């Protein structure tokens, strides 16, 4: 042992000290707000319409038109700010951000610059392992990390470009523009550079999605572009204060793409520094390419002063009174992080169960409705996360609120198992019918005669019959072939239609077989 250790030490000492790097990551998340109409005009925001059908003189910047703020946008932005623990600005305004690109009909975007509606917030995210399950501390509690939210502001979305003659900008001969999305309301949420890994960033983005969906202010659909994340990332030797050169990555349309793009970019930047090519990392925007699993350079980043922001002259300032803020605050639902904590502390559920149950608000509400009738939390959790989740998965597009099996019906089923009326096996047997049609578990059990047989005399009688019918097996058992008890259990279940109390049956069977 001593010798091996000595060799180990020698080898470590001989190897050149390898610098450890860490990534500094911040996210800019754009959430499309679920309003009926655009932020400053009355056109529809419905996704997937015929190109340029949701356009109007205001969002197209026709001369002489005036934008007017949609009141829902302000309400949703303030609620989101409150849910992200932000301070809500008592006085806020809109600004013009100027740049020329064909997706922008007015040549400026109405956004907020120096006085955003919300600032100085934070979210607590759970740290997760490779499988996406929460990491636990020594007390078995989920490990969380606080991620700062720098600001949240309101702005309008741009249109969509289709590059003709090529699926890429580079090879196209001309482009076609659809302005249906131009002027759709967004909130942009900017995080502090508190994230360190791709996994943390993906978890942060998921938590933002959970929050906006709980609030009902956005559907958070990444495929349709309702939730878009831009990543700012740099690497530096661990322990150094100063940030490295920051690169922006865009074009990730899933949480796993966010994670993979960041992991790729960390590797690329660290490799460049280790080769002595650190200078090749320049401040630029890079695009994530899902097909090649790489990032590639898109453009050199312009300094923010090039946008020549100035106060939007067509819109008045926004003043949110303390009363209005409190009124909106009072309508906030219990948020996912609060639910997770409560499920663990008050219901005794594991961090994993709490995380799965609270991911979707509708599922959490279903679970809560079931336990409100008195059913045991852990049992309800198992059914919701197991058979019910599997059923919903198998029926794509079905949501838990549409399930014929209502929470109180599930509670009734669980109650029947809990008080010994039916076995777990019978419960699983009648579940498909309940999932399809709903109804009373008790009524089904009674009408089909499925109640559990717990009368020792009745069980004994059945066992006697079985032993009489299989004298050879009884003999073999008594000669030492103890495994045969399993055979009798199986026969007994078959004979009773799975209705005998399994524990009691085993006790009686053991005694009888012994003779």
């Amino acid at each position, binding site marked *: 042992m001593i010798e091996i250790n000595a060799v180990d030490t020698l080898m470590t000492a001989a190897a050149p000290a390898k610098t450890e790097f860490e990534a500094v990551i911040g996210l800019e998340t754009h959430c499309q707000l679920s309003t009926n109409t655009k932020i400053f005009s009355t056109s529809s925001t419905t996704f997937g319409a015929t190109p340029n059908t949701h356009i109007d003189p205001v969002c197209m910047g026709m001369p002489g038109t005036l934008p007017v703020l949609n009141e829902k946008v*302000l309400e949703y932005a303030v609620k989101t700010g409150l849910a992200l623990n932000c301070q809500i600005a008592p006085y806020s305004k809109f600004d013009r951000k100027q740049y020329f690109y064909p997706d922008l009909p007015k040549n400026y975007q109405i956004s907020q610059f120096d006085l955003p509606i919300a600032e100085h917030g934070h979210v607590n995210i759970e740290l997760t392992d490779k499988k996406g399950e929460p990491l636990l501390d020594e007390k078995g509690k989920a490990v969380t990390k606080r991620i700062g939210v720098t600001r949240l502001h309101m702005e309008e979305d741009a249109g969509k470009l289709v590059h003709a003659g090529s699926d890429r900008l580079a090879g196209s001969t001309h482009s076609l523009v659809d302005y249906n999305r131009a002027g759709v309301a967004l909130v942009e949420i900017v995080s502090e550079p508190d994230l360190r890994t791709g996994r943390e960033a993906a978890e942060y983005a998921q938590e933002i999605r959970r929050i906006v969906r709980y609030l009902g202010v956005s559907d958070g659909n990444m495929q349709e572009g309702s939730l878009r994340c831009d990543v700012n990332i740099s690497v530096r030797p661990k322990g150094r204060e100063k940030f490295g050169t920051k690169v922006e990555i865009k074009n990730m349309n899933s949480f796993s793409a966010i994670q993979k793009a960041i992991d790729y970019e960390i590797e690329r930047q660290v490799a460049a520094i280790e080769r002595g090519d650190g200078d090749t990392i320049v401040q630029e925007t890079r695009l994530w390419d899902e097909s090649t699993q790489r990032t590639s350079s898109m453009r050199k980043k312009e300094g923010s002063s090039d946008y020549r922001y100035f106060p939007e002259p067509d819109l008045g300032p926004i003043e949110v009174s303390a009363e209005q803020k409190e009124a909106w605050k009072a309508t906030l639902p219990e948020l996912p992080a609060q639910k997770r904590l409560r499920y663990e502390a008050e219901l005794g559920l594991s961090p994993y169960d709490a995380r799965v149950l609270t991911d979707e608000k509708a599922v959490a509400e279903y679970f809560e409705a079931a336990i409100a009738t008195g059913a045991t939390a852990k049992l309800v959790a198992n059914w919701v996360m197991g058979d019910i989740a599997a059923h919903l998965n198998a029926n794509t597009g079905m949501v838990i609120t549409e399930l014929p099996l209502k929470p109180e019906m599930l509670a009734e089923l669980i109650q029947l198992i809990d008080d010994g009326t039916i076995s777990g096996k019978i419960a699983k047997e009648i579940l498909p019918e309940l999932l399809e049609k709903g109804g009373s578990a008790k009524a089904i059990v009674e009408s089909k005669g499925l109640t559990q047989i717990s009368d020792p005399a009745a069980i004994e009688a059945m066992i006697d019959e079985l032993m009489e019918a299989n004298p050879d097996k009884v003999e073999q058992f008594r000669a030492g072939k103890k495994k045969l008890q399993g055979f009798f259990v199986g026969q007994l279940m078959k004979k009773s239609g799975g209705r005998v109390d399994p524990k009691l049956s085993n006790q009686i069977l053991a005694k009888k077989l012994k003779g």
Partner: protein
Amino acid sequence: MIDKEQVHRVAHLARLELQPEEETQFEGQLNSILEYFEQLSELNTEDVAPTTRAIDVSNITRIDQLKSSPNREEILDCAPEREGDFFRVPKIMGEG
């Protein structure tokens, strides 16, 4: 005061192509405009909150009610080039 280089830069950001003589002309004109506004700095504004507008109104909002515009065709036809349901724009040289 702004110099010719700044005029050039602002013109570039505004996607304006200026002839050298125009740059000289605009340098003078822009400077005289800025000088004119410079007069404002003679006033002491230390205790005055920044003003972005002259009319004292806030919280002008509208209800979130759908009203489709009847002007779709007109708007599309305003474009220099139209291709069916789309606005057609020339090849994009770089991101802006």
